């Protein structure tokens, strides 16, 4: 048997895509998605009431509180939570900025499910 499942929280304002991706990630034996958030603020609000997740899969373009702000907040308040950025497509500058804000991985949204799994496992293993 595997050891304890890795918890992944998805933060993305595109709810359909997020739900689909959540179900993909949930379908992997190694991961569990306890809850999701629409944006950074929503995430912070829910974190106060829930156990800390191992990984936050963080979209960049979001209303109210975007990926950059959320990553910075997480780095300051919960440095142990791993952040993996996810985006439709973005340029080098955006990626570099996310990495400098503490993200330990970056995936595109049209990624293959297996690549997501690899990226999440890589983040969890760090």
């Amino acid at each position, binding site marked *: 048997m595997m050891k304890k499942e890795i918890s992944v929280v998805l933060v993305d304002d595109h709810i*359909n895509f997020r739900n*689909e991706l959540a179900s*993909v990630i949930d379908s992997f034996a190694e991961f569990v998605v306890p809850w999701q958030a629409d944006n950074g603020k929503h995430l912070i609000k829910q974190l106060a009431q829930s156990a800390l997740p191992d990984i936050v899969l963080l979209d960049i373009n979001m209303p109210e509180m975007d990926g950059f702000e959320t990553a910075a907040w997480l780095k300051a308040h919960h440095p142990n939570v791993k952040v993996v950025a996810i985006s439709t*497509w973005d340029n080098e500058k955006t990626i570099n900025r996310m990495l400098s804000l503490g993200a330990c991985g970056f995936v595109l949204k*049209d990624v*293959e499910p297996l690549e997501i799994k690899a990226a999440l496992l890589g983040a969890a293993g760090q």
Partner: protein
Amino acid sequence: MKKTLFLLLLAAWLHPATAQLTTWTAGLGHLEMGKQVSVLEDPNGAFTIESVSADPFRFTRSNQSILHFGFTRSVFWLHFTLDNPTKDSLLLELDHAFIPTADLYARNSAGRWVAQQAGFRVPLDRKPVINGAQVFPLPAGPHDFYLRLQPYVHAIPVSIWEKSRFHVQASREKLIYGVYAGLLLFAIAINLFLFYTFRRGYYLKYSILVALYILSSALVMEGYAVYFFPTIDLMFWYRIIPVLDMPALLFYCLAFLEVKRLDPKLYRLVNFFCFALLAYIAALEFLPLLPVLVVNQVLALAVFILAILIGVRTGRRGNKLGYYFVIAYSIWFVLIDIELAYIQTGYPPHPGPISYVSLAIFIEAFLLAWLLIQRFRWEKQEDERRQVLMQGHINKMHREFQHAIFSSKLEIQEQTFQEISQEIHDNIGQILSLAKLHIATMEPGGNTVLAGKIRESKTLITKAIADLRNLSHRLNTGYINEVGFDTAVRRELEAIRRSGVFETKLQVTGTPVRFDPQKELILFRIVQELLNNIIKHAGAKTITVNLDYDTPFLDVAVRDDGRGFDRNSNGYHGLGIKSMHHRAGLIGAEFHLTSLIGSGTVATIQLPLRKPAELETAQPEKNSTL
């Protein structure tokens, strides 16, 4: 007692002088009598010929070559003794029109006093000799003559003429005055014509002023009016017309020197003074004559001083013509002073038949005319300068307007691109990603046909996402500014090459540098449009782009090997070439397009990478170090 004795002795000494005999000699022609006459003042005009001739000792020798009595209402008696032993016919002339009455007394053969009457109160056609001045025929032989006259203000040259000499001289004088007046009338005519042509008020005012000048000098002061109006009361007009000159002159000064604009305070003051003058003229009729004549002289001086003051003030405030006015009126002022001196002292005598006032008027009229010409020239130059300036303004405004239009067009375009890019990123991209995710999780359940289709769909969607990502990037302003012009062009060409229809080449010379983001964006949009034109219309196989950073310019050349086009063809205008031209101009670049049917098209853009000022100064620096 002593005093009485002295006076008696003096009278005894004077007596031979009053009885002094002047003898005319043949061929003399003209004899000045100023010092040959004796004078007696008759303050109330009560003396008669009998009373004055009975006591010739009361007369005193004049000692004045030109008789002058100052401002006075007194009657004066002149006495002289003349012997004309020759056969010459002689005339006595009092050379002034402004003597109201002048009576010459001589004894007739019966020994009785007979008077000949002249003066302007006598109608011209009833004078002893028809002339504006007072002229009397003198009988032959030795005679005692007494002359009763009222001089008022004027100095009076007294002389005896041989008759024919007098008529020649008198005709010449009239002729000279005719020429004098003719020249002034000519000046008036020209300025009336100029007024009619240019509609500038000061030409008309000049004409009115000079017309008044002619009236006061030729007609009134010199008395030529009597030839036109034999019964005219010269003294009446003499009080009025020269005074009318004063407001006319000042009004002209105000208009010509633009005093209203340059010195509003002075303008109001002078205007007030002018209207006061006009009121004074209206009241003249009711004022006593002698004080009026004195006041008129003082006013004349005051007006010239005022005119000089206006000239100086406006000259100081930027109207150079003001100083010329000062010169003109200083000449006036001096000549008027000389005239006043002449009236008071009989010296200096008039230069020929023209008085100092007439001379001053003449000089004045032509100096003013000359100033008008100067002014016209300066105004014309100023107009031309203004026109050039205005044209410059208009051109500049036009350019700025064009600039503004194109800037806003580009801004709108860029905004639209940005929105489309965002839409693709946020919406279509998400949906396709979601679709891909769905497909990725599909289970064909051993159905190989289905598995193949799923795989195929996944590939198609992946390609669609990649293409959209590309498109989004190309439209995204921020992206272009981030990667820079050269990289954006490179990626654009790669995207075209990936489509598989065209071969693309990029040649970069020199080290690519970044420049103003706005210019980078506009330049990139032009290149994009050129590439789109090639893709849509050229039918080319190869697209080549050259970027040359080696000079102070960035040289961009976009070349294709397509079918080319004719500038005159209908399709040409659809290519947006004009717009590309404008946009290139907007960033200070030169845009050229060359196309030959069958040989493809080359578009070149040359963008200065440094400011023009730097380009200019760079050259001499280089030279100086050599």
